[in-house]
């Protein structure tokens, strides 16, 4: 009996102490901003007795918030860094203080209206942010074009630099090889032999081969014309141009295949791709190279 009564009193004291904790810790759905723990502790016991303490507490809270707002980055941030203190943020802080004061004076309906308004603000903020993102995306386009142009110029310059180390040497060598002094006599000799060969072997050749050899002969004539047009007094640029033309004609010549075996045999048996039979046949009746 006495033990039961003792437990009841104990629980009662526990609950009363907890209720005081509610007041001291500032618990409950107070819409006002939270005060520091010291202020809450000091004002707690007197809160329900002295109405003036409430206003003193509010003044301290406002002062604290002012320091927080204008302190900016220097204010201790605690565990998580605060958002940047730009003018919009400060305006938002002032707006929140005004809203807190309004909430203190008004009831639930005002809160509902405020919530709807802030909700619309969030939507507008999202739309503005997305629009800004889109505009930023459009802006780099011209930058992209400029950078691509720079990249292309740089790359082409590098390419030219690489090529110039190699190409002029080869061009010079080719100009020497395909010059008139070296190539023209060979071309003329071929042109002398082609008509005789075609006349002698007209019956043996197929139409296809005959046409092919005719085209070869015509191309040799064209090359002879180009080579004859070369002169010693031509400038380097003109020489390069004529060289390229001769080079293209030589490349076309390869498309028509091998020259006639007999003509190749007449030039001697030292070519590695000569026909053995033709070589043997040419050995007898062909003109012999003069021996010193």
């Amino acid at each position, binding site marked *: 009996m006495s033990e039961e009564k003792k437990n009841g009193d104990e629980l009662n004291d526990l609950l009363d102490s907890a209720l005081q904790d509610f007041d001291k810790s500032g618990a409950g759905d107070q819409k006002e901003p939270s005060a520091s723990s010291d202020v809450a502790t000091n004002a707690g016991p007197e809160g329900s007795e002295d109405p003036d303490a409430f206003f003193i507490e509010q003044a301290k809270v406002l002062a604290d918030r002012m320091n927080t707002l204008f302190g900016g980055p220097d204010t201790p941030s605690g565990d998580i860094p605060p958002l940047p203190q730009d003018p919009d943020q400060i305006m938002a802080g002032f707006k929140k203080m005004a809203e807190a004061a309004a909430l203190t004076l008004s009831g639930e309906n005002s809160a509902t209206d405020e919530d709807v308004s802030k909700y619309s603000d969030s939507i507008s903020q999202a739309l503005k942010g997305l629009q800004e993102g889109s505009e930023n*995306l459009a802006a780099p386009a011209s930058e992209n074009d400029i950078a691509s142009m720079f990249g292309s110029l740089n790359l082409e310059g590098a390419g030219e630099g690489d090529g110039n180390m190699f190409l002029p040497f080869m061009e010079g060598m080719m100009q020497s090889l395909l010059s008139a002094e070296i190539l023209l006599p060979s071309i003329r000799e071929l042109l002398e032999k082609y008509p005789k060969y075609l006349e002698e072997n007209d019956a043996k050749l197929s139409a296809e081969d005959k046409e092919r050899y005719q085209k070869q002969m015509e191309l040799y004539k064209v090359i002879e014309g180009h080579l004859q047009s070369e002169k010693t007094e031509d400038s380097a640029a003109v020489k390069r141009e004529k060289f390229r033309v001769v080079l293209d004609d030589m490349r076309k010549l390869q498309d028509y295949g091998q020259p006639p075996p007999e003509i190749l045999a007449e030039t001697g048996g030292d070519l590695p791709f000569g026909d053995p039979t033709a070589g043997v046949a040419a050995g007898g009746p062909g003109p012999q190279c003069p021996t010193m």
Partner: protein
Amino acid sequence: MLSRLQDFLSRHRRKFIVTGVLVGGTIFAARYAQRRFVEFQEKQAREFFERTRRTTHFESTEKTCNQVILGMGEEMCQAVLRECSTDELLEQLRQNPKNKLELWEDMKIVAFTRLATYVYASSMLVIALRVQLNLLGGYIYRDIMTEQKQVTDELKQQYLSLIRHFITDSGIRDLARYIRTQVIAVTKTIPLSEQLSLSDLEQLFWSLQMAINADTRRDPNSRMSKYLLPSQNPSHSPLLQKMVNETLDLLESEDAVGVCSHNVSRGFVLACDAIAESMGETLQHLPQAKVQTQQEQSVKFNQAGSLGASTSKSQNGLENNNLLNINRVLLALAKLIPIISGLTSRGFDTTSRPHNLPTQLLTFYVVAEKTKTLGANVYESFSSA
């Protein structure tokens, strides 16, 4: 002599021809390779710039997303406070009524319900907004790349307004009511005079989390979309309906469910840390409370000898006034309720020092790496589809 030279050239003219063709071919091949190399470099540059533009747009979308989360988080906190209010209960308790114990039981339920609702609602809101804004950002990027204009401002407004269902319609209310039923089930066996340590509190939160996650029909993690977005709306345009369906699919995906579960676990850990900090402040600023706690433990020691060892440790900790013993301090559940209720009595507020629990939760969720990865994956999928 010239005749000899001519014969030599005649004999070797084929070699000269072949050499010329080979050299010419080499020159041509070199030029061709050079041109191909230039084209390759230009292609690489274009790919690099496209990647840079997409990254820039994604980062801009992320920044917008963070701002929207913090803006709407504030309203979400207000909604939770309206749904789990303690003002009326406090007024009644201060009048010392007859049904004091019943009111205290209600206060216990409301305190835990509010804390859990904050943890779950913050996590769900952050994930939903990340998915929505990155999906919308992907669509906008695709519009810009294809020179089209499918996503109008009105469509953006309608799509982003869907979250209103969670904040101002029935979403948070349904969530709070479901969590309340689970809180009642978990805490009804714990009397107000029960002495709890910090590890006991963590165990309690774990049990609450398991209970909330166990119901497969109403589990906030796997049924996120039901709380967050409204049901089918026939007035939606085809593109808006397509975006809504894609959002629902994303919120029901394993990735979103996993991220939400992970965030909720981390949220409860943050809550325990905040409670521990408040417990420390309470014990330091209230010497008489410390005395009462010690006396209560002495009484308990007399009644139950089996708890002697832990009680002795607690007494030693209190006498030494050592903060390291915060984990071994026992505090009655009735005295924990003001602490828990105080932590969650105010909503999101970036200007308060130190930050209260809702602010910490929301800020933590915004910077959580898993949530960011989820958003990045969504953006990548929808910007290149």
